[in-house]
């Protein structure tokens, strides 16, 4: 029996769980919730994934790394980008959120039912990832990448990057 014939979707998921986000390597593409589906057909593996933000420049790197991870299992990858409405920051796993917090990023808050309002960002319960205080303020809606804002913790006087909720 060849290696590829023993390949299961579960093994592909495990391999993808080792593919880091190119910009925030503490979290994997599986933690991030961007892998939508894995289908194994003999030696061919089809992986569907959704970009986080459409303008994310890490998109192509993610696609290449996922394809490499499938190839390392001895299979032929087909990585398909799905640009529907299926991903939101609510899909980041609990494990992923904790990894983000430990790395100094404020994990995204749950999605509100309606559109995001400025007042929610100015007063909402955004916890400092360093000292856990909620005495934080919004400094800039936009941060170093499309997915993050800049906040400042008044308690420990530390600026930090807060994941936007989308």
């Amino acid at each position, binding site marked *: 029996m060849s290696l590829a014939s023993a390949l299961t979707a579960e093994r592909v998921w495990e391999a993808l769980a080792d593919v880091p986000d190119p910009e925030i390597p503490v979290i994997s593409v599986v933690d991030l919730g961007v892998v939508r589906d894995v289908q194994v057909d003999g030696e061919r593996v089809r992986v569907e994934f959704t970009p986080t933000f*459409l303008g994310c*420049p890490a998109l192509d790197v993610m696609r290449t790394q996922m394809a490499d991870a499938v190839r390392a299992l001895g299979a032929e990858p087909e990585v398909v980008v799905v*640009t*529907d409405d*299926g991903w939101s920051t609510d899909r980041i796993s609990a494990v992923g959120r904790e990894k983000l917090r430990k790395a100094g990023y404020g994990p995204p808050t749950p999605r509100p039912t309606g559109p*995001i*309002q*400025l007042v929610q960002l100015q007063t909402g319960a955004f916890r400092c990832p360093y000292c856990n205080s909620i005495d934080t303020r919004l400094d800039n809606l936009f941060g170093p990448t499309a997915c993050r804002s800049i906040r400042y913790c008044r308690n420990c006087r530390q600026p930090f990057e807060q994941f936007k909720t*989308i």
Partner: protein
Amino acid sequence: MSAQAPPRTELLLQLADDELVLGWRDSEWTGIAPFLEEDVAFSSIAQTEIGHARAFYELAAAELDTTADELAFDRRPEEYRCAPLVELNLVHDWAKSVARRWLYETADAIRVDSLKASDWPELAGLAAKIEREEAYHALHAGMWHDRLTRSTARERFATAVDELWPYALGLVEGDQRRILCEAAGREDVPAVERGAHVEDWPALWEEMTMVRRTVPGGSW
């Protein structure tokens, strides 16, 4: 590619060209915005707009049997469908740049909302995703609109909005114009329509397409 694409592809090209060209214009503030936070904000917004352009181009490319890069960078300047609003070179005029951002986001929210009801599932899904990202652009634009409206620069800002308003109407068509008038709290006036290009456009096209024209078929 023919001058006139099928209607749904034509719409995609209008959306994509608007987002690409506005993204390019917004990126011109990178490094020279009034303060650092706005360097970051304009750069980030520009990046997201260009990401949206890419997604629209990819849908159109599948219909037209071409690629997103070819649509974005290999057409002649007269083949672009963008509205004149996004072509204007407004660098060094912060009031006008903020006015454009606010007018654009107000109009864009109306058309993206209508696209969510498209009977083309890929476009409807894409519009829903884009809407959630654009919410942050709209917050930013609204914040600056309020700030300048209440500032000592209010007259200058009001003049900028007056001047750009006919261009903003050119972003949308039909009933969406009436909705835009209500959303912006302004009267309907003759619009600066798509089709003609402003005099700032050829220089921007030269710059935008320079790499592709230097290395035909180049990819990055």
